[in-house]
């Protein structure tokens, strides 16, 4: 096994181009578990720990560009948390403080687990994933196209997630997750809700109840008319209907963590609550 530790992005891309068999190593919170458990063979690893460009974030106008190795701790704190509150809320639910100090948003995207907690938020925000490779250069992929299926992303061989771009919206946001206990759990169901007061609507995506993050399109169109914009007033009945429609978008399965029935119920409750929190009576 060999670990390469490039110090800049070009170095990282060159290392990946030279060693097409190499695996990218960011925070290691997914990869090292696989390695320690013998689920992955040791080979060539390209560690991103020292690549400064990937750890940074910036704001241009109403858009944030968040570097791939920004950690959950980085998302929970400071300005990102005020600009994209749902992302911070999702980050806060990940693992434990020590996991959040290491795990990165790029790793969550590249792992593309159906239970990746930032993924429904990125889906609701219509985020754009910036990818790069030495041979093909940069390209931008909508998060909806990036997440192909369970543990499958649109990343090509030798390609890195460089950053993710998200809009700064006006209006409240929520992320709610259900797990088997309060901390350190893989989610059984997750709901991300972001309001876009300027465009008069809200966007809702679900985690852990489908092969990838799913959008609740029917619930979104319902909210466009059932909520009064821009005042965000809505009736209690609208919240109930919103929960029901959102649950209709879920495509859950039974597994050792929960039944499909329970997951759908959890989505309904979380969606209703999130709706109540982002609207006014």
């Amino acid at each position, binding site marked *: *096994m060999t670990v390469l530790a490039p110090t800049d992005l070009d170095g990282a891309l060159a290392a990946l181009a030279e060693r097409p068999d190499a695996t990218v190593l960011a925070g290691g919170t997914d990869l090292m578990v696989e390695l320690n458990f013998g689920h992955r063979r040791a080979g060539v*690893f390209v560690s991103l720990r020292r690549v400064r460009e990937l750890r940074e974030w910036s704001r241009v106008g109403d858009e944030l560009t968040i570097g791939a190795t920004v950690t959950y*701790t980085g998302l929970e704190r400071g300005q990102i948390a005020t600009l994209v509150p749902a992302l911070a809320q999702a980050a806060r639910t990940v693992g434990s403080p020590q996991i959040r100090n*290491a795990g990165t948003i790029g790793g969550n995207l590249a792992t593309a687990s159906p239970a990746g907690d930032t993924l429904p938020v990125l889906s609701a925000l219509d985020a754009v994933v910036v990818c790069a490779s030495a041979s093909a250069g940069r390209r931008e992929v909508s998060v909806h196209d990036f997440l192909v299926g369970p543990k499958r992303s649109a990343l090509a061989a030798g390609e890195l997630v460089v950053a993710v771009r998200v809009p700064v919206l006006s209006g409240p946001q929520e992320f709610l997750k259900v797990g088997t206990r309060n901390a350190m759990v893989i989610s059984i169901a997750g709901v991300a809700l972001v309001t876009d007061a300027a465009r008069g609507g809200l966007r809702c995506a679900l985690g852990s109840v489908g092969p990838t993050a799913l959008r609740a399109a029917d619930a979104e169109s319902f909210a466009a008319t059932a909520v009064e914009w821009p005042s965000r007033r809505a009736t209690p009945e609208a919240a109930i209907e919103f929960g029901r429609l959102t649950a209709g978008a879920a495509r859950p399965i039974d597994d050792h963590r929960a039944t499909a029935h329970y997951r759908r119920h959890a989505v309904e409750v979380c969606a209703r609550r999130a709706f109540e929190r982002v609207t006014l009576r």
Partner: protein
Amino acid sequence: MTDQAIAITVNGERRKGRTEARTTLADFLRDELALTGTHVGCEHGVCGACTVLLDGEAVRSCLVLAVQADGADITTIEGIGPEPGRLGPVQQAFMECHGLQCGFCTPGFVVSVTSFLAEQPAPTDDEIREMLSGNICRCTGYQGIVAAVHRATELIEEATA
């Protein structure tokens, strides 16, 4: 397997060595540097026994490769006290409040609590439980540990007053 050279600062001391790329930081600290205070429980990121400070942040040393820590500054339980043979405030508090029984989980708790209290010096019970959510203890039932964190905040305040 290829050996790679690394140079890290551990508990203030510059250490150089060669290690297999596959070696985790936890194993490197224990086997190469004989710092066996860092415990290895699950190698899964879950139990927290292996927590060390990597450039000041609490992380799982079982999920970091030693070569990834090249150039970094590491603090282990052996370096948490003010000097060899003297206890730091968090260690003192764990002793006073029965925050440990068998002691297997203790290094991870003490290192974690030390870093969390630096960021949040006066946590509530709920905040303490949240900060300890990544450390598992099979013995104490956590009551003594929560009490120890409160006591540690007092000891730190007294020391800085």
